[in-house]
């Protein structure tokens, strides 16, 4: 019997921005340091990682909402691959390097990927990027190696506040719904779940979030979609354009022959 779908539920309201998840991820997956290990400060934020990429598979976003030096708030969100049920990256990968595992997670096989980078452009969340050491596209594997050994992913194990929770998707959804109800009862009426609905965009996300502001505030798309939504129309318009140009060429050269036959040629 195959295991049930597994994933992450991230409650952003209890994230304290400690970045233990980032460190645990880097450490377990042996990801190289940026800039050869030289410290590089962002200069405009306390967050110096800035984004997910080929060597940062976890990233704690600091959303700094300040109107003055003493009034404002931080929203913290530990971002990661969403392991979409209908995964855009898997859909377009031409080499078969991106697979869905027995845990319903999405993994890039680094020994198959040839670095064409179409998955980077397809991902609606900006999760994937090239790891310049391997020359291949890389992202969170949801610690596939640890899951196969019966362990939980390094990031969720390291999280000191249980902002990142790992488990079966069905159980995590129940837990998340209860948490939203609890927050609403406490007066935090803005709390809602992003990506937990299996009937929602991309068939639901196996890494879903509890948020307290609009998705775009966290750098998340409101309605992430599959890239193939454009395939049919774009192809049809290209074919129509080809037929028009072909007709122009045929008519132009045919006309020339007819002109010459009637003595009016160029």
């Amino acid at each position, binding site marked *: 019997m195959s295991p049930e779908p597994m994933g992450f539920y991230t409650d952003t309201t209890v994230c304290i921005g400690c970045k233990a998840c980032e460190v645990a991820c880097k450490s377990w997956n042996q990801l190289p340091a940026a800039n050869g290990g030289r410290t590089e400060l962002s200069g405009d934020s306390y967050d110096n990682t800035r*984004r*997910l990429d080929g060597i940062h598979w976890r990233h704690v976003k600091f959303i700094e909402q300040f109107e003055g030096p003493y009034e404002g708030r931080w929203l913290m969100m530990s971002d990661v691959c969403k392991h979409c049920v209908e995964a*855009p990256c898997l*859909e*377009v990968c*031409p*080499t*078969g390097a991106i697979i869905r595992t027995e845990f319903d997670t999405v993994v890039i096989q680094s*020994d*198959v*990927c*040839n*670095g*064409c*980078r*179409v998955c*980077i*452009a*397809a*991902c*609606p*969340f*900006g*999760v*994937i990027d*090239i790891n310049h050491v*391997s*020359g*291949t*596209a890389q992202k969170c594997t949801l610690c596939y190696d640890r899951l196969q050994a019966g362990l939980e992913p390094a990031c969720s194990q390291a999280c000191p506040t249980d902002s990142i929770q790992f488990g079966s998707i069905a159980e995590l959804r129940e837990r998340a719904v209860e948490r939203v109800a609890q927050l609403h009862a406490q007066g935090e009426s803005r709390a809602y779940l992003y990506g937990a609905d299996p009937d929602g965009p991309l068939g639901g996300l196996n890494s879903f979030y509890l948020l307290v502001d609009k998705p*775009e505030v966290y750098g*998340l*798309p*409101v*309605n*992430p*979609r599959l*890239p193939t939504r*454009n*395939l049919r*129309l*774009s*192809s049809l*318009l*290209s074919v129509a*354009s*080809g037929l*028009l*140009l*072909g007709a*122009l*060429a*045929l008519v*132009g*050269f*045919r006309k020339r*022959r007819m002109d*010459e036959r009637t003595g009016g*040629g*160029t």
Partner: protein
Amino acid sequence: MSDTFFTSAPHWTWFIVPYFFIGGLAGGACFLAAVLAWIGRPEDRPVARTGFLVGFAGAVVSGLLLTLDLGRPERFWHMLFQSERLPHLSFKSWSPMSFGAWALLLFGLFSGLAALGAVVEEGRLGRGGRAAALRLLHTGPVAGVIVALAASLGFFVAGYTGVLLSVTNRPIWADSPWLGALFLSSGASSGAAVLVLLGARRGSAPGSLTRLVAFDARALLVELVLLIVFLASLGPVVGVWLSGWGVVLGLGVVLAGIVIPLRLHTRGGEPGGSFPIRAAMLVLLGSFLLKLCVMLASEGISLRRMAERM
């Protein structure tokens, strides 16, 4: 703000921009060569032969550029075969990167055969015992099938690149379904332009060049209309062109690459004279700049900056 602004750039730059330009040009030239081979006169044969040679050379260069752009170039064959399950093919009819790799390979094969036929026809190959067999490559039904496949695949390669961009989630590219049609028209006009440029040196008849110039003018008009439709289809995302790339699009693509060549075409002149030659060079420049600014305008978008502006 469009959801496409939350994505990462795939870094398709200095190999892919020339690939889109050369692939489009080669596909367009090969298609026009096929049309001339089907319904042209004997005097059109030099242009047709040039078109097949351009098609094949362009396919080879395109393949090299695509391979060099890979993070792991030695694994280029993973696009075509399942690396873990040889000899199973790797093919996804819904992934333009997948079927595009196959289309380019087959375009190279059939344009190569058509180019070989052209070389044989010019008497540079196939003298002696193999002459009869090689003659099949430029006369008769076998040659007809080869030419038809090379032309179809050429147009396919010229257009699928735009479809590939639309089948992503990136700003500009995924915000319009018109890029495939636009790139195809650009490929057709640049294909005609390169045949005009090379034709004069390869003994093309003045009549052939005149007709190519006339076709180029029509293709440029189609390209201009499609460019306007493409920009209109972007909706609020059209604001991304309020940048340096918008200047390149306006001055480089529209003015220098379409409007001025159209003006030069209408002024006429000798087929091998300065006006058609200048127009052809500008068309090639415009086609390159179109690919350049469509690619880099999207590549360079900074999420933060765009979020503040739009």
